[in-house]
């Protein structure tokens, strides 16, 4: 039997993976994907609690989040592609042309 706890643990694992990805990977595209993972882990949590508490408003939120995430991906991907086209760089550490000082 799959209980709410299982869902929550899965969501936590996905969140941790996403978090780890954002913090460790240097590729912009991968970082964006990791952010999506975290968003989806939050969706999963919402749905799991909605199911166990029988509250339908918990089902509404993931739909909103997915919509926002889609917009976000559209904008994010556009920026990433533009940056890549401009500078041939997809590594975040190289993206310092917006400031003068060197990063510590």
């Amino acid at each position, binding site marked *: 039997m799959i209980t709410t706890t299982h869902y929550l643990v899965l969501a936590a694992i996905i969140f941790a993976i996403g978090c780890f990805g954002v*913090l460790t990977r*240097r590729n912009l595209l991968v970082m964006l994907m990791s952010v999506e993972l975290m968003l989806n882990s939050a969706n999963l949590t919402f749905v799991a609690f909605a199911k166990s508490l029988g509250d339908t408003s918990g089902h509404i939120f993931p739909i909103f989040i997915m919509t926002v995430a889609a917009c976000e991906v559209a904008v994010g991907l556009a920026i990433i592609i533009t940056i890549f086209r401009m500078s041939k760089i997809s590594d975040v550490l190289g993206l310092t042309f917006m*400031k003068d000082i060197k990063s*510590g």
Partner: protein
Amino acid sequence: MDNVIWIIPLLPLVGFLINGLVGRRLPDRLVAIIGVSLPVASFFIAVWSFLELLKLGDEGVLTSTLYTWIVSGDFVVNLTFRFDQLSAVMALVVSGVGSAIHLYSAGYMHDDKSFSRYFSYLNLFLFSMLVLVLAEDLVLLFLGWEGVGLCSYLLIGFWFDDMENAKAGKKAFIVNRIGDLGFFVGMALIVITIGTLNVPEMKNLLEANPGLLTAGMATAITLFLFVGATGKSAQIPLYIWLPDAMAGPTPVSALIHAATMVTAGVYMIARLGFLYVLSPTTMIIVALIGSLTALYAATIGMAQNDIKKVLAYSTISQLGYMFMAVGVGAFASGIFHLMTHAFFKALLFLGAGSVIHAMSGEQDIRNMGGLRKKMPITFWTFLVATLTISGIPPLAGFFSKDEILWKAFSTHLGSIGILFWAIGLLSAVITAFYMFRLFFVAFTGESRASEDVKKHIHESPFSMTSVLILLGIFSVIGGFIGVPELLGGSNHFEHFLAPIFPHLGSRFDAHSAHTWEIILLALSLVAAASGIFLAYLMYVKKTDIPKVFVKKYNALYQLVYDKYRIDELYGAIFIRPFFVLGVIFSSIVDSWIIDGIVRIVTMATAKLGRLFMSFQGGDVRVYGRVLLGGLLLILIIVVFGRV
């Protein structure tokens, strides 16, 4: 403000402001008119106030409060001028002799390029000095006290192009600071114990409640104030600045360093006489320092060849007499001698200035001589002043000096007075000797000047000689206001000042006092005559005696000639250690400890800055990590902290 005495110091201040601010753009003649007429006007107001004061009788006093200067709890300082018998005498002497010297300066300084600067300083000096003598409050007196010190510094270093003059000014200023510190501590102790610095109030409080001051505290206060007096009035051990102060223009030496400023210490002690009589210890110390200074400076005066240096040491010596007088409680005699001294010493200095002026700046008496024919007025007035200072009757110096010697002899302090008297008498012999040595060498005999200088020797202009004659007249008649009863006079001067001073008895009864006074009088005359005779013998009759003497006792002569090498001694025990201390502080304490602390602070700030700079590197992932770490920390605290 119900009378005009506040105008007395105001007028010279106005002169200072005009000459100081716009004097450079005015023609010299106008500067001189402003600079001389305002002091003269203030002298006339002083005379007028004096006549008003006489109408008021014995207990009369004129005061004029301008405004309240300081209010701090119970401690109040008013800007009040007080014109009583003592300040009347001082104000008349200061503004009178001051005006005369201003007039003389107009002739003496006529071709100086800083003519207006000179007159603005001189007027500022007169203002400060009048504030000093008219102040009712010690704080206001101190303001004048510092003001005259400042003007003294400015005028000693008047020709500051020459480093020596600038140094002499600095020396006078620094030595005076040491004395002023003592003065200040004394004032602070008065505030602590009596609670006010207003002189008449102090007097009333002490009369109402003598327990305010313990004997020890009275001694401490008076001694500290006396330290201030030794600085200002050039007494042992702080006299060293006065001989160097001769670097200033000669009228300045006459006004500031002979007639007025240097007597401020005597005035201060006389003014606070009611405090000084509370401490016999201090009285004895003051009299002892005074008498020793009188003797000591007189001996140095014997061996000097610079005409102004001789007069400088003579001034120190005469100031010693005044301190002897106030020390033995004869305040009126001290002020009497202060007044006569102002006349004859100003005259001596101005006469010397006239000679220096005529001889193209020559100050060495060995290069003078034979001035009687060429400068008759200077010659005769200088002779009068020399006779006066030597104590020849009936000139002013005789009455005042003899009065001091008698008061010292008969002092209530006891038989120690005989010691003061003996030192004073010995100094009188030496004074007569060195003054006539100066006179004979500088004025009589054949001229020893070079041909160039000789051609230019001339009598000074009328503005200078008129002052010499005026002061000469005062040196002759000035003593008659204080003729002692013994000689058929009635000592008006002492009776006039009597309301101000505490009355101290004599250790003799009236009958034996009379006998003693006659004996002392005769001895004084013998002293003066023997000094003059000795000088005549050595410098006119048998001029080879000094040479033989110098050869025989060369070491002693050199020691006296070098002023006992006290300057060198002070240099070795005070200035040198301070200098070394300065070097130590600048090279170790400042460059290592102070700079070190500063460097550590800057280094720590920079390091700390660099540490926090890594959080602001602009790297999003670092922000994320910090965010996550913080979040986790909060979570841990929330979850486990509650358990």
